[in-house]
C-alpha cells in the first residue's frame, strides 16, 4: 500500500517535500521514517491527517503522514 508523506523544514533536505511511500506489512509512521532514513530523534511532531499521531499508530488506507523536526514558536 502507498501512503502520502509530507516532510517539513530540514527533513526536506535530500528527500523533497511530498512523496508516496510504499509500505509492506507494517503500516505505521515508524515504517515510513525507516524507509526515508529519518532518525527518530528528528521527529518532533507527527501528524496523521493533520491530527496528532504516534510512530506506532496503525495507518489505514488514504492516511497522510506529516513529519516535522523540532520547530520554533511564534
Amino acid at each position, binding site marked *: 500500500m502507498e501512503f502520502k508523506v509530507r516532510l517539513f*523544514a530540514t527533513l526536506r533536505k535530500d528527500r523533497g517535500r511530498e512523496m508516496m511511500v510504499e509500505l509492506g506489512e507494517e503500516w505505521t509512521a515508524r515504517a515510513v521514517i525507516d524507509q526515508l532514513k529519518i532518525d527518530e530523534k528528528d521527529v518532533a511532531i507527527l501528524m496523521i491527517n493533520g491530527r496528532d499521531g504516534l510512530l506506532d499508530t496503525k495507518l489505514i488506507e488514504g492516511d497522510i503522514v506529516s513529519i516535522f523536526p523540532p520547530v520554533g514558536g511564534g
Partner: protein
Amino acid sequence: MYGYQGKVLRIDLSKGVSKVEDLNLEEAKKFIGGRGLGTKLFVDEVSPSVDALSPENKILFATGPLTGTPTPTGGRYMVVTKSPLTGTIASSNSGGYWGAELKFSGYDVIIVEGRSEKPVYVMIEDDQVEIRDAAHVWGKVVSETTETLLKEVPEKSRVLTIGPAGEKLSNMAAVMNDVSRAAGRSGVGAVMGSKNLKAITVRGTNKVAIANEEALKAVVKDCNAKIRENGVTGQGLPTYGTAVLVNIINEGGVFPTNNFQLSQFSEAEDTSGELLAEKYLTKKDPCYRCPIACGRYCKVDDIEGGGPEYETIWAFGGDCGVSDMPSIIKSNFWCNEYGLDTISTGATIAAAMELYQKGFIKDEDLDGLSLDFGDSDAVVEWTKRIGQRAGFGDKMAEGSYRLADSYGVPELSMSVKKQELPAYDPRAIQGQGLQYATSNRGGCHVRGYLISPEILGLPEKLDRFTIEGKAAWVKIFQDFTAFIDSSGLCLFTSFAMGAGDYAAMTNAVIGTEWTADDVLLAGERIWNLERVFNLDAGVDPSQDTLPKRLLEDPIAEGPSKGNVARLSELLPEYYELRGWSTDGIPTQERKGLLKI
C-alpha cells in the same frame, strides 16, 4: 545594589523638565522589573479611568534586572501604559539593543508624563538628559528618523521612535527601536504620539553590578547549553525563525484564513518559512546577547528590512487570503516604517475584507482600491493607507473592532477586548482559547503560549482538542510568562528553560534566594495586579470571552473540523484556580496572599 541601577528617570513633557528618583528596591524585587515593576509604578500613579491619549496618561519604559547582563537574550524592555485600543493595561515587549543601552545609561525605568506643546525627542547619555526639538523628524518614517537622529546624538546611541502611525494616534501604532524591532501591540505608539514625543535615544557607559559573578558564569553556561541542545531554540528558530510555523499550524487545521472563516489555507506552502529561508532571507538579525537569533532580514525588489515573523506572514497572508510572499514582505516593511503593529494591521484588513464581502463596506468608500480576499497588491496599499490614515485607511487605523462596530457587526472583528487575535484558531486548541479570553491585554498569544504544549509538545504533549487540565496549564503559563517578561529576557528562552533556571539566573544577578515556586508566585502577583487595574478601568469579566464565531460556529472543514472553543466549560475552573470569585474578581484573601 545588584541587578538594578536603582534609578528612575522621570520626564515631564508639559513642564519640559526631567529628574532622577531612587528606585524602591524592595518593591522592585517584589515586582521584578519590566512588565511587573512597570505596571506597579504605573498603577500607583495613574487613575484606571484615565483617557489613554490624554496628558494624564503616562508611558513607562522598563528594563528588568537581567537586562544588560550576560544572561542569554538579556536585552529586553517593556513599554507600559494604558492602551487606547483595549482600555486595559498595555505592556509591549521589545528586543534589539535599546533596552540594554537604557540600562547602561544608568536607569531601570523611564517614566514619561504630560504632553509637550511641540514635537520633541529625548536624548539620554548617562546622566545628561535633554528634551530636544523634533520638528525635523516629525512625519518621517522610522528608518529616516533613526538615521537623522543618529547623526545628532552621541555616537553609539540607540534609537527608539514612533512612525507616522503613532503621530496620527492610530490604535495599532507600535513603538519601534533599532529600526525594525517593535513593542508592537495595544497601540502604545499612539500614547507616545499623543504626548508629542517622537523618539528617545539612549547611550550609556554604566555596567550592571552582579551579586555573584562566579555563580552567574556557571548558570549562564548551563542555560546556553540548554538553549543549544533544545531542538526549538538550538535548531528550529535559528534556521527558520518563527516563520517555520506556517506549515505546521496550517497542517493541523489551526491556521485562521480569510478572517477566521476557514482554519486551513490551501496556499500556505507559498508563504512558508521554508520558502522564506530559501528565496528571501538575506541574513539573521539577532537581538542583544541572543544565542537563538530568530530574527530575520529579508529582501524583495528594492525593499530590505527586518522580519517577517510568523504572525506577520499569517496576518498579511492567510488571514487576508494572500499567498504571495513578496507582498507580505512589503506589508511588513511598511508596518516597520510607519510604526504599525503587524498583527492588528493585517487582521484589521482581513476584517474589512469580510465586511466588504458581506456588503457592509461599499465600493464608493474605497477610492477605487480593492478589498477582495487574496488581492495581495491591495493589502500592501491598505497597509500604507492605514499608516498614513489616508482615505478609508483612516477608519481602519482605529482597529477591527471599532470598524466592524461602526457597521453594527462587532462580531466580525476577530478580537478579544478589542485587540486582534493572532495566528491560531482557538477552536482547534482549547487551552489557547482560554488564554486568549483571559489575557490581560486582550487578544494575544504571548501572555501564555499554550501552542507550546498543545502543538509543539513542549514541555510535554497535550491533546489540543480536550479541555481536561487546561485551565491549570493556562494559569501556570500566564504566571511564568509574567515573570519572564519582567526579568528582561526573551520569552523564547522558555522553550529550553524552566522556572528553576530563571530563579538561578536572577539569584546570581540580584543576590536573592528564589526558588521555582517564587518565580511563579511573583508572576501570579503581577498577573493579579494587571487584572485589578483592568477591572478598575471598567474592563469587566464579561469581556473574558471570544468572538461569537469561535464559540458557536464549528470549524467547517479540515483536520479540526467540527470543533468550537469550549470556553464556558473552562472559565469557571480557571477563576477557581486563580482564587477569584465565581464571577472573576480577585478576592481580598487572594490579594492579601499575593501582597498586592
